[in-house]
């Protein structure tokens, strides 16, 4: 938190330039790795590897392109996306709220701890059959599973943030005559924000896992369904295309979250 001079000296700009150069070198290597990997796969496909099992990059892109043109990809992606985001938002909101409530009292925290830990330790996917049984094969069980997966990660991270709030800052506000709400809003929330973000970043992929896994078990739409139905038809290219699409979406969402995080912590 220390450092950062008020004016920018010339050494700093020089340093920035060096780090720019390093960054472009990193990108060059990334592209090299990708190209080498794809070229090796393409060349091996049909020669060293059986096309039936491994497909080939060109065949995957072809499948993906057909799906894009027919609108199939977008339709399924939109479903998964919607389930994940709604579940993510619900899980996040409940996780933060629960952590703030439990964080108010050490007694409450200790009393509830074994229950939370027990449920947290359960693989969330194991809950999918239960939610499908309860909520059918529509979007609801996927949303619930995504929410549950996100909830615990956000809850535990936020709770440790709340508990690490600097007591001296809280005391300073109490002496100013601050109410409980003032302290929560002005100290506890902003100081737990880094932990909340950690929870969000960890939680987002698990939200996807929850939604996609539930789709694979019982569904007629979504990326999980697309993967499952392609696999059912032994369409290897289809399976890979669906996974690729999912990868692109999760990466984009993670990137958006990082952007939001950088904005929220511009004071650091």
């Amino acid at each position, binding site marked *: 938190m220390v*450092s950062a001079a008020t004016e920018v000296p010339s050494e700093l700009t020089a340093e920035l330039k060096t780090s720019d150069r390093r960054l472009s070198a990193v990108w060059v290597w990334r592209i090299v790795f990708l190209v080498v990997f794809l070229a090796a796969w393409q060349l091996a496909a049909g020669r060293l590897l059986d096309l039936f099992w491994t497909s080939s990059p060109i065949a995957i892109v072809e499948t993906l392109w057909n799906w894009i043109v027919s609108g199939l990809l977008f339709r399924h992606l939109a479903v998964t996306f919607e389930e994940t985001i709604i579940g993510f938002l619900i899980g996040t909101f409940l996780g933060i709220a629960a952590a703030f409530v439990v964080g108010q009292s050490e007694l409450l925290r200790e009393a509830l701890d074994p229950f939370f830990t027990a449920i947290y330790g359960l693989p969330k996917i194991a809950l999918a059959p239960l939610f499908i049984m309860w909520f059918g094969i529509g979007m609801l069980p996927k949303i619930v599973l995504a929410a549950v997966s996100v909830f615990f990660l956000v809850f535990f991270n936020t709770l440790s943030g709340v508990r690490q709030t600097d007591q*001296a800052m809280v005391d300073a506000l109490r002496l100013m005559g601050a109410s409980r709400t003032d302290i929560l809003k*002005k100290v506890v929330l902003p100081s737990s924000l880094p932990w909340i973000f950690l929870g969000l970043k960890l939680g987002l992929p698990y939200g996807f896992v929850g939604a996609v896994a539930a789709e694979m078990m019982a569904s007629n739409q979504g990326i999980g369904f697309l993967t499952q139905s392609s696999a059912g038809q032994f369409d290897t290219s289809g399976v890979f295309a669906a996974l690729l699409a999912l990868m692109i979406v999760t990466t984009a969402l993670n990137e958006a979250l990082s952007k939001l995080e950088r904005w929220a912590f511009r004071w650091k």
Partner: protein
Amino acid sequence: MATSSPYLKQSSAKAASLITFSGVRKSFTVRGRTTDVIEQFDLGIRDGEFICVVGPSGSGKSTILNMVAGLLPPSKGVVSYDGQVVNSVNTAVSYLTQHDTLLPWRTVADNIALPLEIKRVPKAQRLQSVQAMIETVGLSGFAKHYPSQLSGGMRKRVMLARMLVQDPATILMDEPFGPLDAQLKLALQAELLRLWTVTHKTILFVTHDIVEAITLADRVVVFSARPSRVKFVENISIPRPRDVHEVRFLKGFEEHYRRLQDAIDINA
């Protein structure tokens, strides 16, 4: 309000005391081991009086301030403020702690505005007070900076501004000018004396610096080493208004200095 001139020779304060420590003891228990920090402390501080506390590290000087603020209860005895026993947070006092309690996610201006926000002061009035206070502590041009962009001395000044903007009846200060350079230290001492002369706040000021104590105080209280008790109380006879640059050359300064130096010497 104390109308008697604070620089007249004082007898021990009795009924007129604003802050009273009677029979105060404090011990801390850490991992089953009890350490006596304060063995015995009795003192009355009159309304409008300027008291400096000096003594070796760990002799419980900050503990005294924490008790007046109501952040720490005495193990035995009573601390009272304005006739009331202090048993919870005392919002009549404003406390400049040694610990940095600025909120790192708020700019300088927003940090100084914090106590006014808590008191629900209208925004226009808030901005005006904050701007004036920024100038008083010499931080013009830094209003939009975050604490992490400031030096230790500047952060101290922001804390000072945040305290003064509350216009409290009583000020507690724990080595506030410790990390500042000599020039700035004198400037802020002068500013503090000026404010005190105008407003006649009661000030309880902890310092390591005997010269500072003589410059500022009506009475200097010397703590012994732990477990501490009041070893010595020196009434400062130097007339007011005092010029912080000149005090050390005035008649009587040397005697005060020698007596305090002897008292503070642990080997004596």
